[in-house]
């Protein structure tokens, strides 16, 4: 791992990200503003799972409507996040918050996979316009907590990194 991080830090691309005046602020701005699309839509979905908003619409319909944009937002978050990481991979990886953030993102992904493999598979059985089952609400709460932790850890990285 150490070897890889140092190799990455020595690439011309990493040097450009580090030294350019505009690259990092620009990429970080896209990363932060895309929160509205990605995290915003995740929150809307979670609130629907919890029966708090958009109750007139079936969960399946909300999933179908939000997912394409949510995935697009996620792709932008991963891309810009990777670029930011490339600017100083050794320093990023050395912080506890970076590792925590990655673990939380993986857990949030596992939460989605578990939903798809269980509740999502027979959505027609419970998604009939009434209150969502408690297991669906639990999935929504897990998502809320995990993404909150991702945001918190992300902020933590900024303060744990050595000043430029």
């Amino acid at each position, binding site marked *: 791992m150490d070897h890889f991080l140092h190799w990455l830090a020595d690439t011309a691309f990493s040097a450009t990200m580090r030294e350019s005046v505009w690259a990092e*602020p620009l990429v970080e701005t896209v990363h932060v503003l895309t929160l509205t699309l*990605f995290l915003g*839509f995740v929150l*809307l979905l979670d609130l629907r799972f919890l029966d708090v908003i958009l109750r007139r619409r079936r969960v399946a319909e909300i999933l179908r409507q939000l997912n394409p944009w949510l995935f697009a937002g996620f792709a932008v978050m991963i891309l810009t996040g990777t670029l930011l990481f490339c600017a100083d991979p050794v320093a990023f990886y050395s912080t506890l918050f970076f590792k925590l953030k990655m673990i939380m993102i993986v857990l949030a992904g596992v939460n989605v996979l578990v939903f798809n493999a269980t509740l999502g598979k027979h959505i027609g059985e419970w998604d009939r316009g009434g209150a969502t089952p408690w297991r669906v609400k639990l999935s929504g709460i897990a998502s809320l907590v995990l993404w909150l932790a991702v945001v918190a850890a992300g902020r933590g990285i900024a303060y744990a990194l050595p000043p430029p």
Partner: protein
Amino acid sequence: MASALLAFCEWCNASAVGHAIRDSVWLFPFVEIFHLLALALLGGMILLLNMRLLGLRLRAEPIAALTRELYPWMAGAIAVMFISGFLLFCTEAVKMYGNWAFQLKMTFLLLAILYTFTIHRRLLLTADTHPRPLARALTVAISLLLWLAVGLGGRALGYVTTAVSSLAASR
């Protein structure tokens, strides 16, 4: 007016809240977390409403009903952003007073809120019975541009270094 504003900024700077957040290592990022979460919720809802207005998403849902449901949430998110933003502002209020990016952000914030709760809202509430495609596109464009300007101002204010007024020495 200007001196009253500066006096207010100095008062914020010297306030117990300003001191507490400045002196703490973790309070500033802690408050930022709430600012970011509310940003995601507010931005997500504005995007969804604009997508609905353009017929891109949730076409089966009446626009007026969606508007009535989401606007109170948007107002709540704006309240969280305003409170958390004000707390962050208190840590360096006098610096912000002279920061052009902050001034720009506040100007566009005022415009964006006024627009969202008047023109934008009225068009959303009447859109189900009045197609007006051109007006819709224009309303969406203005909404996105105003909120984007607020976001960009927010990003920029951290990079703008301002000459600290001599009056700020009181902090």
